[in-house]
């Protein structure tokens, strides 16, 4: 039986990890590759690098980070942030990365999903969505809107419609980030996760709001997500991935045990 996945995310700015990963005090906590190695050892099933640098030099540095990661870490990893064209996909995949995440460019030009899927296969096309609950939607008919440019600009695009369309255009997976829940550590927006997961046949990765192993368990069961993303592992404390996996496994969720 396919295991549900625990994915750790690293925000990278000009080749350095941002956000405080303080508990890794005996490694170079700012080096994404060192941190990736550490997460791998701790039992992460997959890694996501999100390049938040808004410049061309930033892109080259990110590719260099991905390339070094492929030399050191032998689990699947995704690179996202600033991806616009099929050439960007090619450059990322050439480093040894397995998947490419695309957010804003896919909203602006949805064909990029199809072009990338036809060229490299759907399995490497991750549609990343930053969404926010529509405030005036009736409680029994909740809606979410897609945002672009790091969650700054609303698009008027309905999240459910976009997820379904994204799948039909060639996306192989959806990385679903709730702007409302992000950083709260109060749990994923389970209603959102469930709504999208039930509407598509491709895997949905829940993102935003994780604060305890229970939250991850909820996303993988009630939310029907195939994977849960943890952005700020540091907030949890040492050995957190093992704790999360134990918590989920004890409650019957299929999980890859740490070290297997």
């Amino acid at each position: 039986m396919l295991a549900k996945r625990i994915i750790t995310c690293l925000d990278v700015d000009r080749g350095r990890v941002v956000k405080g990963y303080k508990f890794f005090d005996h490694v170079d906590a700012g080096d994404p590759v060192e941190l990736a190695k550490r997460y791998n050892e701790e039992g992460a099933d997959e890694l996501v690098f999100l390049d938040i640098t808004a410049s061309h030099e930033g892109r080259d540095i990110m590719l260099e980070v991905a390339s070094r990661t492929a030399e050191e870490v032998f689990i699947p990893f995704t690179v996202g942030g600033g991806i616009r064209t099929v050439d960007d996909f090619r450059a990322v995949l050439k480093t040894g990365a397995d998947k490419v995440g695309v957010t804003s460019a896919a909203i602006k030009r949805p064909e990029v999903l199809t072009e990338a899927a036809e060229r490299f296969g759907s399995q490497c096309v991750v549609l990343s969505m930053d969404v926010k609950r529509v405030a005036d939607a009736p409680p029994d008919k909740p809606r979410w809107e897609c945002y672009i440019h790091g969650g700054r600009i609303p698009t008027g695009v309905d999240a459910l419609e976009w997820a379904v369309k994204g799948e039909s255009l060639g996306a192989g997976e959806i990385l679903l980030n709730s702007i409302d829940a992000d950083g709260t550590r109060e749990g994923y927006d389970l209603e959102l996760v469930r709504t999208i997961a039930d509407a598509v046949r491709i895997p949905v990765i829940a993102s935003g709001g994780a604060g305890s192993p229970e939250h991850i368990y909820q996303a993988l069961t009630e939310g029907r997500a195939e994977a849960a993303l943890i952005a700020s592992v540091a907030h949890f404390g040492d050995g957190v991935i093992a704790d999360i996996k134990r918590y989920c496994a004890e409650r019957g969720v299929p999980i890859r045990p740490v070290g297997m």
Partner: protein
Amino acid sequence: MIAIIDYGMGNLRSVEKALERVGGRPRIITGPEEASGAEALVLPGVGAFGQAMDRLQEAGMDALVKSWIAEDRPFLGICLGLQLLFSESEEFGPVKGLGIVPGRVVRFSGPAYEPHDGDPGLKVPHMGWNQIKVVRPHPVTEGLPEGAMTYFVHSFYVAPEESEWTAVTSDHGVEFTAAVARGNMFASQFHPEKSGEVGLTMLANFVKLVEERSGR
């Protein structure tokens, strides 16, 4: 030297780096003449079966793979590199394969993969970590922990006619062959180069097999 066949089907960098990590000396080759001096051959690959067969033939690598395995020289197939060894695939086909292992490559299909009664059904492609079971021990599977998991990405799986070929199985709605083996040949559906410690253990075993056979 371990020759990794590059025939334009996907990125080989991860395979190369993983073999280096476990002490192997990989080199990527694009033609059969570059295989001289190689002690082992690796056939990786992701993508469509038919296109892969065409490219393998264009590169003149099909004959190399056939004679290599016929001579029982160390061989490692990965993903599409497993499927291509079979007689034929139903992917956009039937399309003929290398015909080294009698059997077919078939798609995960049936009611289990369709949505029913509010259950979304099993997903295809089968993508992610799944448990493997060693049913016929081979040097490459030595030392794996009970319940080991490996990383898969595929929509089609191999069905050998003779069960003696099957070395490893996994389960995704159906128990399927996750690896075949015979002599010094081992070929897996999963990606050892992306399967963490378990995958590296298998690659290290393969490198050891190559070295022992070369008398080093």
